[in-house]
């Protein structure tokens, strides 16, 4: 009886140890799987947040202002814009900006470049470091070619950059 009991205890201890080891391994695997899933989810949220913050920061730091605009002939208007933000704007993105011009009551979208009028194009007039980018405090000159002779009245200009921020300007012609 004693021998059987001892042998039985050994068997019980051995079975119990194996069971505990299996449960422990299972628990570790389950925790690892949970941790991996949780961490990857956390990193995804973190990356999305970083991207959103970076985008918001870029939008906040990018700002331009029409510093002056006036007609220089009966059909040509010059507009000077200064980068008053903290970020530079690559030259290839300037052409992607939107320009609206016309009399105060009926202004229209002006296409960039092209062969037909109206159209607009730009040039750097103050590229201080000659890097071809529109850096803060630098100025560009926009030329609007209008198909008709500008009549007496109030005119409106809106220039919107690629981030969606815009700047407005109004001038009058009294001739």
């Amino acid at each position, binding site marked *: 009886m004693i021998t059987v009991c001892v042998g039985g205890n050994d068997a019980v201890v051995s079975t119990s140890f194996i069971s505990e080891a299996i*449960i*422990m391994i299972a*628990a*570790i695997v389950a*925790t690892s799987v949970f*941790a991996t899933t*949780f*961490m990857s989810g*956390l990193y995804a949220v*973190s990356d999305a*947040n*970083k991207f959103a*913050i970076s985008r918001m*920061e870029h939008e*906040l*730091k990018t700002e331009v*202002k029409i*510093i*002056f605009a*006036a*007609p*220089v*002939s*009966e059909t040509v208007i*010059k507009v*000077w814009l*200064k980068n*008053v933000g*903290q970020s530079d704007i690559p030259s290839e993105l300037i052409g992607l900006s939107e320009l609206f011009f016309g009399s105060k009551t009926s202004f229209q979208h002006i296409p960039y470049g092209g062969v037909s009028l109206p159209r607009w194009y730009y040039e750097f*007039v*103050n590229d*201080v470091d000659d890097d071809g980018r529109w850096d803060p*405090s*630098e*100025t560009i*000159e926009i030329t609007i070619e209008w198909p008709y002779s500008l009549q007496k009245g109030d005119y409106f200009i809106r220039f919107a950059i690629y981030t969606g921020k815009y700047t407005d300007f109004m001038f009058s012609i009294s*001739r």
Partner: protein
Amino acid sequence: MLITASTLTIIIMLIFTQCTYIIQTGIGIYYEGLEALRHRISLESTAIEIINVTPQSNTTIYARIKNTGSCSIPVIQFNKMEIFVIGTLVNYTYPTVIRVPFDQSSIREEGWRVVSVYTNGVIGDVLNPIDLPSALSGKWDPLEELVIIITLSNKHALNLTHPISVVFVAPNGVSTVEGGVQN
């Protein structure tokens, strides 16, 4: 026991990672906000005023401009300032606009340069003095007045029987305008 300990360790690590991320993001946002605030303060503390505009000839205009704000503008940023002259050219009947770049060494046919600096009506500046005539260092400090000369090319000679105006724009886009007549 071991399971509890390892689970606790993983949970502590996760909380620590999350806290680190939140603190890092918070610090980043704080610095960005600080930078944006500094930029906004610089915009709001910049003010300039054209005291007078005096055409000397149809291609030469003198102007006196005062820094009425509370921040200084370094001389090295003068090439980021803009001057526009609005007037009627000789042989024309309608006004036009001429953009005049900064040209202290008078290399170009058309440009503007600083001739002298006044402080409270007295010639000279003590604080961050501008080294004239080269104007390579120094600052245009609050209450200081710049006397500038604007030179236009013969192509842009102005008909002085018509009114002229000068627009002056600071590097951050703050602007002022003043008209002038010939003496």
